[in-house]
């Protein structure tokens, strides 16, 4: 019983037999088949269950507009749900499964929904599952989701690679049918750079499905020759298996190329798909047209198909969906299908034509002025009931029905930039509106030129016009003669007769009744109908159903179609895998990992890393035997207090500011006076946003009259630099100043602790004096170390200890670190990470991003005096606003935990002790917490209303999420060495 429905001829390669399975049953097809054509060849009509009612459904179309035949392809990690069988290219070993059925496709328990359909119409879910509200998420939604399903995903990581790519061209031709081929040939022959993209694996579009001739050639041979000529042109890039899915501003399009989807396995080194971004100077949309059905009762049986699809299966794939086919049409295209079927030896049991004056059919019975009112055959069409022109009812046997209600120009891509299509009454189709996207034109059936001759002509004309815009000469060459007949369509949308359901949108199970109900409840605008009924949603976006639904709504309300509404399409045209858009930017490749020049040394010495602003920073350095991070961090903190510690601080943003206006420039950037900073000195600097909120802080070191090095926090490095460029270019461009980020140009280490100077002296070259007298606190100097190596030394301290920061060219960082650790051994030098740094800065009350959090001001940070009122600086004026300068507002305070219960956590609220914590007004919040091994207590920083005057008060730190409350004492934010004596020794 192999390929019982296979006919003679066609464009399949019969010498290449391919094995595949569908629901674990083995079948065979040929190279050139789609899964859909191969299934039909094997007599398989039932391929899926519908979304809502679990109705048995078959293949409806022969292209990407398919609403029904969604299948799951492949297995395990490569399992891919919701693939349209009509575009899945057959390969040897393909495994496919039907979806949305249990336990099997032929016997689906949820088909009970179909029996209950009178309760399940549009709006049912909205109205029914209202109460109780808490049931929605936990009960209703999971049940509905399970019942109203599409395919399943594997939840395994996709083993294939996806790429993103960029292309440029003079002319992008979207679609490789007659219009697209003609446009690409015209532009290609004129020497323009051309990209021709088509979603099919064989160029030609409808030409491959027709039997007429173009010039002396069969239509498909013409397409084949045109494709070969285009392939031979070096200035033309032919991209088959490539769907242009979106159109964006200024000629940018995106497209998905299915590089390996048609192969059993993605070849080594090749991507599965490529997501292209195409920059075009001109684009010509030649996307063809999509046939539409006619709605009648039970018009969704497996075997009921679009007429053009049956034509394509017969001519291109040499397949008849059944041995007896009936045709239901309101135009001459249905007749063409009948003739081609008859020529292939398929029995056409009747041509049912709604037109009274329908032309005669040789070889089949014509029922003019008749209409199909119902059908039989639950799992596969057996017959249709026809209301004859004289009112009699007649059963016509058929295993398949070819339905043609006319054609809709495929305007989707022309709509992406808000160009609304307009209704053409003569064509009974929407066509692209006048407000076309700049650089975009449209040719062939996509703009309503439905005949082949008109498509060839339109493609060439549009190409010439596009090239003319670009100043490229192109000649109009004589086109071969081609089919040029009219459709002779007489509009007919739906059969009113019958009580059952007539389907409009098969993917979403939307029927004529649903539209009626929507209108009845006053959802009668097209956008409302869509949302009320789900018409036009999901994977096919209503490619076959939208216009039909709109036309029926127009008839039901007695309006014209333009008065009822319009259609529009958003990108993407067809579904795109998120993986293709992500390309290689997945997992660790999602964003860059930045490593400091000390990274190798850090790794070798037990560093545990965390990510800060993409940088990998050492949190602490675990020694053998240390099992808890606190052991390492406490040890590091205590060691720095007693001897010396070394930390990698390379990640701080570093900006080099130069020019005769540099000092004045920095005066604008920072709130405090920088201009008077002497050469060879450093100063702590605070930046505000223009709205007066604290922005960032760092140190400013003056290397020369006209040169400064400033640091930023790690996180804000790029933003502060951008902001400095703004101030330089947009606010004070007359200043002679240049700024350059030099973050990566220098590695930097902090050397902190009472013996830090002794350690440094071991590597500083003779001739440089760093004694306390010669190089006091806040000094800076350019010097050499280790016998001639240039370096910069800053005597600044984040830790509160006697400390230095040493900046080095990156290539020497690793060896200098190794030398320092070796020379530091007698001094008990230890490396320390950012956790120890954090403990020490909390002990000193130094603010970081936790405190400079976008809600705090210089005043609330206790830095009010840093805002110099005798000069202009960013944020100075607005920082004086009442609400920001209220002294009883939140102020930075220290917090010492009094009870040794659970440690307080950052984010906890501060609440007055005498109040019930659950009901009290929050007095402030905790920003940072650490265990201080020096104080042997948990301490923190936070903001407290009127905090300045509340030192010594005991309050609650409340963490409502965990139900915890702990008593804390409000203290000075500087816990250790408040006079700063250690810094200056």
């Amino acid at each position, binding site marked *: 019983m192999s390929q019982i429905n296979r006919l003679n001829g066609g464009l399949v390669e019969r010498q290449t037999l391919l094995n595949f399975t569908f629901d674990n049953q083995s079948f065979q097809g040929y190279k050139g088949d789609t899964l859909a054509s191969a299934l039909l060849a094997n007599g398989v009509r039932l391929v899926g269950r519908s979304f809502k009612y679990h109705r048995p459904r078959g293949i409806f179309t022969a292209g990407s507009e398919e609403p029904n035949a969604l299948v799951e392809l492949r297995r395990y990690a490569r399992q891919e749900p919701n693939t349209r069988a009509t575009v899945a290219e057959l390969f040897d070993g393909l495994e496919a499964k039907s979806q949305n059925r249990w336990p099997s496709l032929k016997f689906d328990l949820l088909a009970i929904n179909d029996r209950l359909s009178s309760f399940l119409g549009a709006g049912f879910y909205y109205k029914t599952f209202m109460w109780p509200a808490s049931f929605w998420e936990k009960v209703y939604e999971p049940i509905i989701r399970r019942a109203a399903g599409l395919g399943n995903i594997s939840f395994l990581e996709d083993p294939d690679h996806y790429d993103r790519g960029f292309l440029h061209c003079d002319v992008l031709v979207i679609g490789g049918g007659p219009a697209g081929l003609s446009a690409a040939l015209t532009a290609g022959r004129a020497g323009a750079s051309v990209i021709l993209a088509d979603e099919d694996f064989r160029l030609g579009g409808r030409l491959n499905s027709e039997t007429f001739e173009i010039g002396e050639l069969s239509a498909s041979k013409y397409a084949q020759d045109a494709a070969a000529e285009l392939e031979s042109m070096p200035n033309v890039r032919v991209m088959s298996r490539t769907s242009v899915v979106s159109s964006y501003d200024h000629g940018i399009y995106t497209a998905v190329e299915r590089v390996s989807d048609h192969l059993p396995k993605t070849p080594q080194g090749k991507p599965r798909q490529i997501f292209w971004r195409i920059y075009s100077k001109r684009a010509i949309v030649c996307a063809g047209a999509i046939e539409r059905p006619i709605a009648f009762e039970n018009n969704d049986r497996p075997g009921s198909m679009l007429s053009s699809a049956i034509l394509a299966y017969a001519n291109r794939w040499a397949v008849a969906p059944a041995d007896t086919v009936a045709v239901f049409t309101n135009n001459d295209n249905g007749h063409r299908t009948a003739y081609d079927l008859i020529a292939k030896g398929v029995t056409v049991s009747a041509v049912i034509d709604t037109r009274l004056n329908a032309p005669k059919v040789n070889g089949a019975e014509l029922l003019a002025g008749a209409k199909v009112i119902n059908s039989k055959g639950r799992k596969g069409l057996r017959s249709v009931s026809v209301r004859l022109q004289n009112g009699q009812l007649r059963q016509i046997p058929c295993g398949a029905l070819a339905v043609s209600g006319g054609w809709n120009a495929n305007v989707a891509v022309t709509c992406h930039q808000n160009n609304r299509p307009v209704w053409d009454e003569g064509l009974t189709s929407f066509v692209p509106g006048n407000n076309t996207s700049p650089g975009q034109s449209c040719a062939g059936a996509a703009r309503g030129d439905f005949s082949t001759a008109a498509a060839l002509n339109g493609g060439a004309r549009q190409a010439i016009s596009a090239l003319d815009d670009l100043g490229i000469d192109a000649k109009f060459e004589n086109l071969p003669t081609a089919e040029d007949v009219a459709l002779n369509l007489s509009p007919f949308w739906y059969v009113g007769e019958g009580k059952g359901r007539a389907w409009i949108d098969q993917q979403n199970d939307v029927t004529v009744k649903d539209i009626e109900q929507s209108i009845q409840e006053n959802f009668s605008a097209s956008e409302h109908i869509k949302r009320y009924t789900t018409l036009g949603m999901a994977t096919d976006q209503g490619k076959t159903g939208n216009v039909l639904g709109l036309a029926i709504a127009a008839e039901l309300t007695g309006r014209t179609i333009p008065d009822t509404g319009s259609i529009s399409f958003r990108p993407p045209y067809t579904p795109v895998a998120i993986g293709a858009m992500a390309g290689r930017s997945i997992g660790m490749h999602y964003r860059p990992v930045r490593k400091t020049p000390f990274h190798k040394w850090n790794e070798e010495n037990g560093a545990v890393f965390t990510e800060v602003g993409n940088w990998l920073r050492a949190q602490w350095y675990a020694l053998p035997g240390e099992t808890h991070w606190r052991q390492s961090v406490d040890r590091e903190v205590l060691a720095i207090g007693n001897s010396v510690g070394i930390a990698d601080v390379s990640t701080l943003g570093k900006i080099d500011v130069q020019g005769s206006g540099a000092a004045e420039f920095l005066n604008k950037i920072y709130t405090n006076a920088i201009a008077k900073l002497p050469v060879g000195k450093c100063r702590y600097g605070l930046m505000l946003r223009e709205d007066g909120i604290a922005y960032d802080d760092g140190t400013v070191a003056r290397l020369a009259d006209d040169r400064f090095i400033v640091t930023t926090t790690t996180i804000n490095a790029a933003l502060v630099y*951008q902001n400095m460029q703004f101030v330089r270019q*947009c606010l004070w461009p007359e200043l002679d100043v240049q700024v350059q980020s030099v973050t990566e140009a220098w590695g930097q280490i902090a050397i902190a602790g009472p013996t830090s100077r002794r350690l440094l002296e071991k590597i500083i070259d003779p001739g440089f004096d760093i004694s306390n007298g010669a190089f006091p606190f806040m000094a800076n100097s350019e010097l050499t170390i280790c016998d001639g190596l240039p370096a910069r030394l800053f005597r600044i301290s984040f830790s509160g200890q006697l400390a230095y920061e040493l900046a080095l060219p990156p290539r020497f960082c690793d060896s200098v670190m190794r030398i320092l650790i070796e020379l530091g051994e007698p001094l008990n030098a230890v490396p320390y990470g950012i956790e120890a740094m954090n403990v020490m800065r909390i002990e000193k009350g130094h603010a970081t991003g936790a405190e400079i959090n976008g809600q705090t001001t210089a005043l609330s940070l206790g830095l009010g005096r840093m805002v110099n009122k005798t000069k*202009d600086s960013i944020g100075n004026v607005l920082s004086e606003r009442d609400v920001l300068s209220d002294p009883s507002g939140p102020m930075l305070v220290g917090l010492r935990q009094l009870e040794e219960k659970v440690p307080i956590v950052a984010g906890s609220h501060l609440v007055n002790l005498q109040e019930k914590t659950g009901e009290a007004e929050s007095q402030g919040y905790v920003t940072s917490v650490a265990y201080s091994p020096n104080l042997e207590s948990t301490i923190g920083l936070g903001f407290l209303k009127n905090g300045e005057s509340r030192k010594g008060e005991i309050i609650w730190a409340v963490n409502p999420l965990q139900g915890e409350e702990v008593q804390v004492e409000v203290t000075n934010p500087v816990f250790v060495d408040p006079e700063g004596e250690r810094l200056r020794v």
Partner: protein
Amino acid sequence: MIIDHPLLGPRDSQEFTYLGDATLLNRPDWKSENSSNEFFEYLYLRDNPAGPHRELWYHTYGDQSWLIVTRDTVTHEISHVELANDFKRKRGKGA
């Protein structure tokens, strides 16, 4: 979108960071008597035109220049691009 950079030619807008209305160039005088109100208006009160709009874009993944881009907010047509630096200096001389 494509932004025609005055120095670097046409570049994809993905290389840029958007800031907002180009009136941000007109920072008030901090010494003005009414400076608080002027700064408030400068920072918060913007026109929101449906049509041509002068706005600031920063060439983050490029040369770090700030551009004044005149873009139609309805059609996204970009009719003019200039360096903020040049514009501001030119205006400074005329004033």
